[in-house]
């Protein structure tokens, strides 16, 4: 491995992580403003122009908060849980192609860290599964019944919906004939997979909401019943890490959806100006995130048994059907 390649990868990783963190900060502001507008309010507009410094103020506040560890808690796991939750969320985007290759100083650089790895989609579903451990451990190590219930709910919910999510991933894999996300995006240059996979896209929309524990599937948090679910006992930066994991996963899931179904970085004139690619990807991601916030502003929380019934009796058969139909169509089309 040449040193220049190492430098390139380091720069790319740092940029991706920093982008995720900045995205997290401003997603909180974006969410609050969108929700406020949908509730005919204004939303945070005091800190800085249009409230742009609100995330900074929130961050400073959380840093200076007292860090509490309950007396009966399992201290090691209690500290470990937020870390286990946030890291998978941050490394999720490593396999996403952000744009086509560009040439800087005679050097071909592909926009994306490991976007050509041949198990890209598998990596996505593997890494998202790890985050469940963080939440379950947080619920268990807090030694609090609400936290434990939140942890149990989230594990059940995420495991159930991950099945549907994994099966939905199979559609684009079959169509592209590859698990590499770079290939999947390249294959969508002329036709987005959302046209070929409408059921898959809808199932993905629903399952991804459940996967990141967002309303209307925010059962693990359920303020009204579980006070805050798995992170009741967390405060200060440890709480901020859970918060960060949730929002970073929202971004990551939206980027994945844009890549798998909405043509990734493709858009008009990307062939001529490759730097437009990230812009298109960003726009598609924002649109999908807006959809998530819209759902949160509109839909009340599901009842727990209905959530499970919906996941197992509707979403799972639907995605299985989608896989079978896609497989048949791919073979017939060939």
């Amino acid at each position, binding site marked *: 491995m040449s040193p220049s390649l190492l430098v390139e990868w380091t720069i790319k990783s740092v940029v991706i992580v920093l982008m995720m963190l900045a995205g997290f900060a401003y997603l909180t502001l974006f969410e609050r403003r*969108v929700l*406020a*507008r*949908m509730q*005919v309010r*204004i939303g945070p507009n005091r800190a800085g122009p249009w409230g742009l410094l609100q995330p900074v103020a929130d961050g400073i506040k959380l840093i200076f908060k007292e860090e509490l560890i309950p007396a009966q808690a399992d201290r090691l796991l209690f500290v470990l849980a937020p870390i286990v939750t946030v890291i998978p969320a941050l490394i999720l985007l490593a396999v996403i192609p952000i744009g086509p290759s560009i040439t800087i100083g005679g050097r071909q650089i592909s926009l994306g860290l490991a976007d050509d790895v041949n198990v890209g989609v598998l990596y996505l579903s593997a890494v998202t599964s790890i985050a469940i451990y963080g939440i379950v451990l947080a619920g268990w190590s807090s030694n609090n019944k609400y936290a434990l219930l939140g942890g149990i709910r989230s594990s059940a919910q995420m495991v159930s919906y991950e099945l549907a999510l994994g099966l939905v991933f199979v559609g684009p894999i079959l169509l592209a004939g590859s698990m590499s996300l770079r290939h999947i995006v390249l294959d969508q240059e002329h036709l987005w997979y959302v046209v070929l996979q409408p059921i898959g896209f809808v199932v993905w929309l629903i399952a991804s909401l459940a996967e990141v524990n967002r309303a209307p599937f925010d059962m693990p948090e359920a303020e009204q019943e579980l006070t805050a679910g798995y992170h009741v006992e967390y405060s200060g930066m440890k709480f901020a890490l859970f918060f960060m994991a949730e929002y970073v996963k929202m971004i990551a899931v939206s980027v994945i959806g844009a890549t798998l179904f909405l043509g990734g970085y493709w858009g008009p004139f990307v062939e001529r100006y490759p730097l437009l690619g990230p812009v298109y990807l960003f726009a598609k991601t924002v649109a999908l995130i807006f959809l998530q916030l*819209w759902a949160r502003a*509109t*839909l009340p929380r599901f009842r727990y048994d209905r959530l499970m019934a919906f996941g197992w009796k509707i979403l799972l058969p639907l995605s299985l059907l989608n896989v079978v139909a896609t497989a048949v169509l791919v073979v017939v089309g060939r």
Partner: protein
Amino acid sequence: MFLVELARGFWTTFRSMFERPVTISYPEVKRPVRERFRGRHELKRYGNGLEKCIGCSLCAAACPADAIFVEGAENTDEARYSPGERYASTYEINMLRCIFCGYCEDACPTEAIVLGHNYELSFTDRRQSVYTKDLLLVPVPPGGQPTPMRVAPGAFNQSIPLMKDPE
């Protein structure tokens, strides 16, 4: 059927994004309070500048939260504060105790204490919660004189003054 309901719900939230926000940006825009709003107390004056309060302590007696402290003193013709026999030399309201019930207003025989419209009563120190007489007393109206004023002997001879503005 379920999908129609779903679409209607989403349409409702989307439509409300384009409505005017109902928020009132408080420190810049202040919503007017009702006429009978009970805010911070004010000690009123007559048109000539004399204080309406005659230091009778009925407000302190009526106060269910024991927030008011009044100390009366005698008026003289050289130093006259109120048209009555006595005036309030000390008048303090503890805003940490006050529950803004308005009983003091009802108890006052001369309509001297009135709950005003000011509701911005934040303070950073417990000591600042005690509002003294000079904070509560309204400014002298135009054409009036500040108290204590020197008056002609025998001009005010009633222990409880008439309810109208003295000439």
